């Protein structure tokens, strides 16, 4: 592939990545409750990170570094999914507690 085409593709991926991060942040403000905000933050931001990693791939120094940033993306995915689940579980637990209090 000619260099200019790679650069164009990179620019596209990086811009798209930023847009998805923008959507994630927008979600923090537009969505009504914590759980819905977790949805936006987890999904949009992880896609944004993935796109930015892909966009950076052609400019990293070597294949080892490329493998490293892909590895970092995987770690961030697992981290984000785990954190989302843990926070959601906590929100759920405190929700059902206040439900019981309301019922009493």
């Amino acid at each position: 592939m000619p260099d200019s085409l790679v650069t164009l593709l990179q620019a596209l991926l990086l811009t798209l990545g930023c847009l998805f991060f923008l959507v994630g942040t927008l979600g923090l403000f537009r969505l009504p409750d914590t759980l819905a905000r977790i949805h936006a933050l987890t999904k949009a931001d992880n896609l944004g990170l993935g796109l930015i990693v892909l966009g950076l791939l052609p400019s990293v120094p070597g294949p080892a570094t490329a493998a490293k940033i892909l590895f970092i993306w995987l770690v961030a995915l697992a981290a984000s999914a785990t954190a989302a689940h843990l926070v959601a579980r906590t929100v759920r637990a405190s929700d059902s507690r206040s439900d019981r209090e309301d019922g009493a």
Partner: protein
Amino acid sequence: MTILIDTVALVLLLLLSVGLLRIWLGPEPADRMLASQLFGTTGVALLLVLAESQGEPALRDVALVLALLAVLATVAFVTRVMQVARADSAGERRDA
């Protein structure tokens, strides 16, 4: 290309600050905990982009450690909230 990568870094930094505003507003503790997720993704992306634009490979290690620490922070938060909640409900039972 350099200008583009620098712009991406700037945009990410801006989004991170706006996200922090939301976290400052709260209102629930769980809302504040989303900060760790925000840093776990936006922060990692920012560091990876900066590693490229500054030619500073060590920043990629920082990104990796940040992603891992984000989970630990969440675990610590969840454990504490659960403990407080359990202590609360134990207190309620005593009151009743």
